[in-house]
């Protein structure tokens, strides 16, 4: 178990150093270097098959890179499994929503909270002092911080599988937030949403990044360039496993290599608008 150090705004929270990931002879990631600083929104863009999701999987522990290091708060975490990384404060949502369709919204979100439960089986089964107190605290947290933030009051008792896709995505975000993460990986949070839902989701991402209560560092994988350029502090461009550039939205948009390799001449602002 790695104990995390306290770090300040602007310090490097997560670092990928020369990360390589091969599937057979295909190099999905060929020496990627990335530094994510605390409290920023850092986006990763790139064409389909660029290796974005592989990169996220390496960070979150679903994949182990063959070469290079992943470090979190200055400590190497290559050897840690996903649940151990979650305990360090690393949460994620998935490109295709991965929720428990048969459970209610509240239950899905509560599940994301399980790491924070301290009471044992015995007090839990009899709902004794400590378990009861803890349960109430968690309930308050979920209701006041998550349900209210994501505006899902009207569906809290609905089974998630019955909800429209846009709401399922919100629930998944809620579950990730229940972990109270320090770094949140959002893998295409806007894919498949309509314009109104996109605006809502963008607002939620800003809220969790900027609100005093949250201040969550976000690593965002997204295709919607309008949203990416509006929200991000920095943008990382990936192309077939190689980094093209990593800079502010302005720098990225004016980088000739990016325009040539990925964005295409007129597609620069190809958003759904």
């Amino acid at each position, binding site marked *: 178990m790695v104990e995390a150090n306290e770090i300040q705004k602007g310090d490097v929270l997560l670092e990928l150093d020369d990360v390589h990931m091969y599937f057979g002879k295909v190099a999905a990631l060929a020496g990627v270097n990335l530094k994510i600083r605390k409290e920023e929104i850092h986006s990763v863009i790139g064409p389909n098959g660029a290796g974005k999701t592989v990169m996220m999987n390496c960070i979150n522990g679903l994949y182990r890179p063959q070469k290079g290091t992943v470090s979190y708060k200055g400590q190497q975490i290559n050897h840690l499994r996903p649940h151990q990384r979650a305990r360090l404060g690393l949460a994620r949502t998935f490109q295709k929503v991965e929720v428990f369709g048969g459970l209610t919204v509240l239950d899905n979100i509560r599940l994301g909270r399980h790491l924070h439960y301290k009471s044992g089986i015995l007090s839990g089964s009899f709902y004794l002092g400590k378990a009861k107190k803890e349960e109430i605290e968690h309930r308050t947290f979920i209701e*006041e911080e998550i349900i*209210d*933030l994501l505006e899902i*009051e*009207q569906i809290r008792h609905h089974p998630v599988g019955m909800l429209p896709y846009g709401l399922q995505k919100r629930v998944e975000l809620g579950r990730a937030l229940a972990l109270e993460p320090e770094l949140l990986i959002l893998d295409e949070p806007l894919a498949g949403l309509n*314009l109104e839902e996109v*605006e809502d989701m963008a*607002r939620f991402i800003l809220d969790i990044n900027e609100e005093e209560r949250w201040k969550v560092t976000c690593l965002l994988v997204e295709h919607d360039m309008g949203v990416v350029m509006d929200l991000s502090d920095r943008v990382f461009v990936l192309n077939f496993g190689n980094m093209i550039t990593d800079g502010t939205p302005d720098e990225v948009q004016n980088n000739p290599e990016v325009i040539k390799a990925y964005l295409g001449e007129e597609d620069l602002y190809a958003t759904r608008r």
Partner: protein
Amino acid sequence: MAGGLEITEDLTIPKLFWKKAQEFGADRVAMREKEFGVWRPIAWAQYLENVKHLALGLVKLGLKKGDKVSIIGDNRPEGLWAEMAALCAGGIGVWLFQDCLIDEVRYIIDHSDSRFLFGEGQEEVDKALSIIGECPKLEKVIWDDPKGMRNYDQDCLISLKEVQALGRELEKEQPNRFEELVEQGTGSEVALLFYTSGTTSLPKGALLSHNNMLTMGKALMSVDPCYDTDDYVSYLPFAWIGEQMMSISCGLQIGYTINFPEEPETAQENIREIGPHVMFAPPRMYEQMTRTVQVKYLDASWTKRKFFELSNKIGYHVANLKFEKKPIPLHWQLLQWLARITVQNKVRDHLGLSRVRNAYTGGAAMGPDHFRFFHALGVNLKQIYGQTEVAGISVVHRSGDIKFDTVGKPIPGTDIKITEDGEIITRSPSVFLGYYKNPEATDQALQDGWLYSDDKGFIDEDGHLVVFDRTKDVFTLKDGQPFSPQYLETRLKFSPYVRDAWVLGHERDYVAAVMCIDYNVVGNWADEKKLNYTSYPELSQKPEVYELVEKQIRQANKDLPESARVVRFTNLYKELDPDDDELTRTRKLRRSFVQKRYESIVNALYSEDDSVHIDTTIRYEDGREAHIKTDMTIRNVDQ
């Protein structure tokens, strides 16, 4: 009971509020709000504290007697505090509908000369900031929900908490200031300025005095008493006079608990949790409930459907006996009891009507089918008639004396007369003071103390008032008979598949209708029939949907005289929407507007054509525009 309170010339809403707060103190719940999943009570003492500091805060910010304070936002305690604080500080309250478009907000703020605006959170603040440049009199915008407000630092913005803090400072300097403020003023002074939605023109601001509001509440409660142990759910816009009447005129007077839902979307669920004793809602709410039941019925299992049908039969029979004022034979009473315990109690519980003593509807016409439906369920639904200009209502059904084609009898203290032209005129202590900055309209509406309503009607042999419609909305059919299109429209809307209907036929050869399907209900129906569709325009034009709508029309046509039956119809490619000015904010059809807007459709309905081409641009709420090109089928109804 309400009878205890004497309404003197001197009594104002703030004085009454002060008295009630002293009387009930910290032990009794004044309001409840569902927040974070639990109901949180607010005692009268807390209510008083909040209002006191808010009022003093407004005074500290410079509020002078007679200044207008606008309020916009969902129903929540802070909204009512703001209104009460404005009144206590000597100001005049102006409520805006939560979904007002920016132009309406600007018009009302500017026309009312508001100096202060209470908004709920970011959304309202954004609206206010976008118009503040054009409303020079507006000085401060007060918000209470901090969500999303972290990056706002404009000088005109101040949070509710900060205003209350200012109020607390002032209280320290002048401990008796609030009581002095409350003591000033008399009942005849203006309390509220209400902008009527108006089906024809720009909104007009009706000035209502403290006395108007309080006498109205007292008169209503002398007919149907309320008790201080009652619960009421406030979820309809405060900008609607009906909600003010229940929350202020009646609520404050008797001191019942006002419950606020968690979110507008959870209102129905929250009503069920509370089970209010009294309810007042426009017909569309009851229509929605009926639709919910009908849709659930369609989805239910065979056994449940049969039980429902049986209990319905019993319910309708008993209700009809009651309407005819005939005694109910013992065996029917027994059957009714069976229907109650097996089916009806459950249904009523789901609708939140399990404890309701009196349910009122008003603001627009309600069809007899809906009326029968609720009485068959054992809900004491009553029609009321009134307008903003009489502070709410003037006529109401009495229990046990309900006729669904009338609106009942005048409440005590109210005189109703019919002019020679058939116009309904009213005289009562609740008749308003006039329109703000509009003497011509005031002169037209107020003549010798009588309020001219512009509604046509007559008084029937039992002394009940029958309201036709707006004078200009009465049709003459080809056989010379007068006819109310609203009547037919409400009949059509009894079908769960029909969301809105617009009936034509004034001085025409036959009656035609433009129908708007209910997207959800028809959508579900189409899913079951395995019909593919991607959008409302597409679904509305499916031949199968036309079949379905035609069936609903044939049902509504039954028992109508032949000249009043719908002969031709079309399904509109979109839903009628207040944002497009087709409906008022209270969902009344703006006939002259739609007539002009859909002229080509009207012409096609009265031609030989079997379709009409539509080529138009529609604007979405977020400002996007979409080009719509479609052909609308026109169909004859098989008689």
